[in-house]
């Protein structure tokens, strides 16, 4: 490599000024990214990886003044000394960017074709060129088969299609460098795979450099030649992908690898955490599970969502679903978003009325209209994806924890014990949800759901908003509790690796129907024979 690096960072520092004072978010980051190669920055939220990438584009968070230090060179140009106008000339035409949230990153009021055309025009194409370019780009990202795609609005597209459009948009200026900031985080795992594959193809075909930012080592390992691990604004470890994955040097990197489900060899009972690595502990292997009696059973369940307005037909969300939940076991439910897996969970706790079929809990038939007796309520509990949303922001953690006892008029226990059960210190009972991290909040909602000692717990994407390390803590806590309380758990997730780790049995849901799958058969095989996620046309 005699050529100088396309992107060269030396001792980069980023400081943002908020109403709480100045906060250094990136502290002395250096790396080289050569043309045609892929570099991944890996780290958990708050590690400064996104700010590092954005500083390359000169895009800070709006309204929050950002100060850069150190040196950043793109193709020999000193990015730090460039004026806003010069940076603008660079953006789009030489550096493209793809972001985490495709739905939000596209202007909702503009057809996607127009947005791509605008990007091409901004990068210097003239009118007619830009127009032909739009269809070429849409073809390149694999959307050409959709009729009238260019004229569609973002909300008319699925998440995967939106992200493909975003990629087309980022490529409209034929950039030398593509910055992809967690482009798959918001997507279902199958769609994410497809996007990763697409990025890999594009990167090779266009011979552009790719700066890929992710919290997911698994994803990164399939794409990047080099990896940088970041934490608290600093580089913890850097090296080739192979080197990092096979022979990590730092405890943090090791933990990051070990706590990611599906990366650590044989299934284990618990996930590795940073504390375990530091203390040298190793989680034991998975023990065989003896299924207990059936706690909850569902037969031929059908749910139809009512249409909005007078003349609009509703659409079916569940069609003839049957399953059994056994005490002490975890049943995994996998499927793309909109496949009806959450609806099933909601129907079980009566948040959704059912049209036909039956739900029994402890052999008691439950009402179809969603009405539940207090005793039914105590048997089945639900943990939501959005832990901060599931806690009233105006009530302290303690108040929220004691709410179940208050509702069911049972003697109030102490919050200390409830918190200890999920591995949280007693003093957070006095705090408000806004003061806790996502992982802590999710453990609080689990503690709340278990306050009345239900027989059955429904976990709806409970870790999808969490970093892998938090996810490990939450899942370990859940495993402990399940063993102790002989809980029957319905575990809903779009992440197959996770489900595979956690569950004893996996069911796949497509368009409101279930397909039974043997656990010993790898889930990935199932998807290859019958794709779980067919992107809606």
């Amino acid at each position, binding site marked *: 490599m005699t050529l100088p690096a396309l992107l060269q960072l030396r001792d980069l520092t980023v400081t943002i000024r908020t109403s709480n004072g100045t906060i250094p978010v990136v502290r002395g980051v250096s790396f080289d990214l050569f043309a045609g190669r892929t570099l991944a920055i890996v780290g958990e939220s708050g590690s400064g990886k996104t700010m590092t990438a954005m500083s390359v584009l000169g895009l800070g968070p709006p*309204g929050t003044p950002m100060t850069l230090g150190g040196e950043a060179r793109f193709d020999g140009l000193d990015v730090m000394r460039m004026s806003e106008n010069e940076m603008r000339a660079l953006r*789009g035409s030489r550096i493209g960017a793809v*972001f985490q949230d495709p739905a939000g*990153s596209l*202007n*909702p*009021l503009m057809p996607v074709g127009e947005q791509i055309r*605008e*990007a091409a025009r*901004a990068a210097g194409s003239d009118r007619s060129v830009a127009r032909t370019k739009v269809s070429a780009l849409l073809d390149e990202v694999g959307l050409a088969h959709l009729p009238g795609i260019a004229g569609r609005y973002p909300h008319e597209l699925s998440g995967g299609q939106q992200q493909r459009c975003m990629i087309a948009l980022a490529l409209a200026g034929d950039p030398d460098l593509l910055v992809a900031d967690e482009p798959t985080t918001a997507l279902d795992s199958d769609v994410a795979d497809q996007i990763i594959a697409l990025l890999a193809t594009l990167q090779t075909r266009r011979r552009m450099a790719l700066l890929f930012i992710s919290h997911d080592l698994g994803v990164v390992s399939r794409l990047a030649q080099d990896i940088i691990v970041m934490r608290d604004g600093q580089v913890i470890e850097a090296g080739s992908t192979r080197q990092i994955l096979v022979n990590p040097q730092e405890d943090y990197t090791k933990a990051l690898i070990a706590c990611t489900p599906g990366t650590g060899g044989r299934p284990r009972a618990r996930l590795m955490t940073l504390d375990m690595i530091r203390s040298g502990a190793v989680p034991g292997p998975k023990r065989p599970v003896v299924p207990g009696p059936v706690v909850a059973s569902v037969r031929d369940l059908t749910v139809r969502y009512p249409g909005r307005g007078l003349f609009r037909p509703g659409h079916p969300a569940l069609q003839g679903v049957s399953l059994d939940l056994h005490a002490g076991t975890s049943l995994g439910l996998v499927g793309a978003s909109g496949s009806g897996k959450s609806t099933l969970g909601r129907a079980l706790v009566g948040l959704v009325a059912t049209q036909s079929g039956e739900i029994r809990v402890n052999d008691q038939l439950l009402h179809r209209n969603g009405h539940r007796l207090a005793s039914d309520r105590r048997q089945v509990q639900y943990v939501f994806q959005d832990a901060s949303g599931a806690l009233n922001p105006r009530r302290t953690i303690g108040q929220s924890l004691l709410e179940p006892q208050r509702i069911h008029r049972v003697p109030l226990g102490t919050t200390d014990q409830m918190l200890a059960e999920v591995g949280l210190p007693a003093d957070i009972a006095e705090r408000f949800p806004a003061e806790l991290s996502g992982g802590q909040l999710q453990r609080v909602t689990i503690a709340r759901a278990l306050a009345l000692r239900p027989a059955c717990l429904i976990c709806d994407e409970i870790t999808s908003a969490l970093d892998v390390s938090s996810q490990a803590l939450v899942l370990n806590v859940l495993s402990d509790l399940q063993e102790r309380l002989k809980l029957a758990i319905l575990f809903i997730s779009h992440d197959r690796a996770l489900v595979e780790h956690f569950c004893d049995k996996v069911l796949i849901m497509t368009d409101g129907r279930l397909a039974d799958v043997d656990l010993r058969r790898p889930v990935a095989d199932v998807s290859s024979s019958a794709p779980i996620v067919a992107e809606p046309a």
Partner: protein
Amino acid sequence: MNDRLIQTLLPIGADILRSLMIAAGIVVFSFFLIRMIPGDIVDVMGIQGTLTYGQQDAMRESLRLNEGWWSQFTAWLGMVAGGDFGVSLRYGTPILDLLRVALAPTLILGASALGIGLTLGVGLPVLACVFPKSIFVALVQFITLWSIVVPTFSIGILCVIVFAVWLGWIPAIGNMVVPAVILGMDTAGTLAKMLHEDMVDTERAAFVRTARAKGLSRWQIVLRHILPNALTVVVALFGILLAGALTGAITMEVVFGLPGLGTLTLQAIQGRDYPVVQAVVIWLGLTVVLANLISDLVQRSLDPRIGR
């Protein structure tokens, strides 16, 4: 495709249906609202001290004011349905003629106020957004503050004193420029405040970051991405803004002596000229309902997400 058409048309139909219902409500309501006011046209004549009570009763009878409200209501409804608001009890002239005369100043005042309001209320926030560290931000804050602090009617009075009395620049009665500017400033303030806040919020949206990453100029980002998204809020408020401008116009008409709907209404209420008040209530009410409907429809066309 057919399904898609139905999905587009149905909510529009529902909007129109709802507007029609409210319009019908206004028509019925205007009748009874006015009947709640004690006293009638005969009292007007009574105030001249020219009628004995026997004479007043005879007069009520001849004007059918002594009949039950139901027969008055049905008779009136029949007339209104035919587009005839009847004859002013006070002036004896057809109400439509009165409205036609009164409508012009109010419309001109309301429209120019709305025009000034929209120009300033959209223009300033746009400029403030394009040049975030400029005088325009201060101007947005000023005009916002102005509309909060200065009640239109008191500044109207002050303007009459200063410009008409002390300086003699404008005629004391019948001037339109000053009230239009006052009302326009007021509308602009309300609008600018909302739009500016919305634009600042929209600035944080991910798609604006996308637009910046494309390398668009500041003007392009603001005009093509930030403004249209923030504007949906303004469009949604168009009906309310119009109602506000009309209300403001009524006050301004009285302060500046303009012979518009406001003056007409005030006189009609004070003169218990029922048919005129009803006609004005219906006209103004329907105008606002229509404006709301239009703003709903425009919003639909602006924002493809609504009603799908």
